[in-house]
């Protein structure tokens, strides 16, 4: 055994070399973004070289302008509300779908799963004209409700898989003890849902934070812009101030990058849970 380990150690150098190449390949764009954000507009040096001066003005300018704080607030409101509604409606819906597998419920289940595959933009015309008729354009709640509806199937899928794995005898025992369905759910099932709720929070949270396709059409007034819309404004109409735009993009992605670095174990487990049947 000892001999084998020694042997492996020697032949490992190419792995480290390959590892370094792969890491550079995957972080290079973010590196360029950060470098851009710290350069002056007139700096014509290569995008790959770090500036030899310290220039935080791009960031200062953006915060002085203040719009980004409003966009942050909007994104935070949308993300929190969508996650809250998805967890409540999705968690509740999964209980009967996991426990009562009648023909009717299996039909409902397959409708939900089908929606998971639909590209949300394919029914853009329908969604948009619905929102116009209920005055949901340029409101955060319009975007929130649409996002919840499209995110629910994934949420329900995750919760249903998870509840399936909880022994049904627990519910039955509680029923014999006199619990009604509501009590069974809130006392027996709900306390066990913590791990899958973390997964739902992470997966859907990333999706909502990065949402753009519907936000672009629903949120038309600048004061309702979310971060992605704000960034797209910077890039498309910023008078070609790419350094300022890069700084804004840095600010927008910061929260999610930090969350990912700190909680990566959960991010990765969440991805696996969502993809591989439980």
């Amino acid at each position, binding site marked *: 055994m000892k001999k084998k380990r020694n042997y492996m150690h020697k032949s490992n150098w190419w792995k480290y070399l390959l590892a370094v190449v792969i890491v550079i390949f995957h972080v290079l764009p973010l590196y360029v973004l950060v470098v851009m954000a710290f350069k002056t507009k007139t700096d014509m040096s290569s995008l790959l070289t770090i500036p030899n001066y310290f220039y935080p003005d791009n960031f200062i300018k953006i915060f002085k302008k203040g719009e980004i704080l409003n966009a942050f607030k909007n994104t935070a409101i949308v993300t929190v509300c969508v996650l809250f509604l998805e967890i409540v409606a999705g968690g509740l819906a999964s209980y009967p779908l996991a426990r009562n597998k009648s023909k009717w419920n299996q039909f409902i289940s397959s409708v939900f799963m089908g929606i998971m595959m639909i590209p949300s933009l394919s029914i853009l015309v329908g969604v948009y004209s619905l929102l116009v008729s209920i005055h949901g354009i340029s409101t955060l709640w319009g975007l929130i409700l649409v996002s919840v509806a499209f995110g629910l199937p994934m949420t329900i899928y995750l919760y249903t898989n998870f509840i399936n794995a909880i022994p049904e005898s627990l519910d039955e025992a509680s029923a014999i003890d006199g619990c009604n369905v509501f009590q069974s759910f809130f006392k027996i099932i709900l306390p066990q849902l913590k791990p899958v709720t973390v997964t739902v929070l992470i997966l859907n949270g990333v999706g909502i934070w990065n949402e753009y396709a519907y936000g672009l059409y629903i949120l038309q007034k600048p004061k309702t812009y979310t971060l992605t819309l704000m960034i797209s404004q910077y890039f498309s109409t910023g008078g070609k101030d790419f350094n300022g735009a890069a700084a804004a993009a840095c600010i927008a992605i910061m929260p*999610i*990058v930090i969350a990912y670095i700190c909680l990566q174990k959960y991010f990765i487990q969440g991805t696996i849970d969502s993809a591989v049947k439980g």
Partner: protein
Amino acid sequence: MKKRKRMLNLFYIPALILILFFVVYPLLEAFRISFTQWNGYSQDYKYIGFSNYAKLFKDENFRTAFINTIIYGFGSTLLQNVFGLAYAVFLNSRFRGHSVVRTFIYLPAMISGLIMGYIIYFFVMYNHGVFNEIIGWFGAAPVDWMADGPRGVIIMTLINSWQFVGICMVIYLAGLQNVPQMYLEAAEIDGANSWQRFRHITFPLLLPSIASAVVLNLIGGLKLYDVIVALSGGGPGFTTHSLASYISNQYFKAQNAGYSAAVGIFTFFFIMIVANIFTRYFNKKEVEM
């Protein structure tokens, strides 16, 4: 107990209402609008039967968007699975610091496709772009990367694959860890080389992971939208549109809501059918194994 089960069904009413109202109803509404001629906001519209659908066959821009969508979808799926599996096998060989590498490969998937598109603009731009700088080191003349439609499609397929390969890798890593070590050891004792061990033991056991990774990537790639908006806006001309971006282009730019709805309904059925074919295929394969 029966009454209990009926009570239980009350639980899915909130979700059902939300989905009926914001997905099912808009779907039916889009279906209805697809039979009309309508600019998207005015009061007057008229039913024109299947004209919008007939137009699909004649519209060259639609055909381009359809072909592009297939390239975006299947191209990214192929690349992500090949590289995702290669990365997973590499990281599974457990050298020191392999988890750091995993962290960085997965990182771009956390960032909005839109913002990633803008970041990549710094690479493909003509003046001072990173790509032109790199090819300049080798004495090549600068290239206007996004000026050519087909090349733009390939570049955006590569970007999408690069950005989300981490998801695939993570799925395969989980799959590889489920391959029992003793099978591999037994085969090694029997004299199987490492390729044979991979081909005949690891690969068949990975099939469930392959199934989910392929379907997930297909659905993701066929929906591609953000990167296109950020990087090419569908241009030059209409050469790099995907179906998703063409839908919004026809609705909001061309103000042709009826036609846009028809493209949407087509996209809806197209993706449903592709996803179903692949899901069925893999289910059958798994049963055979």
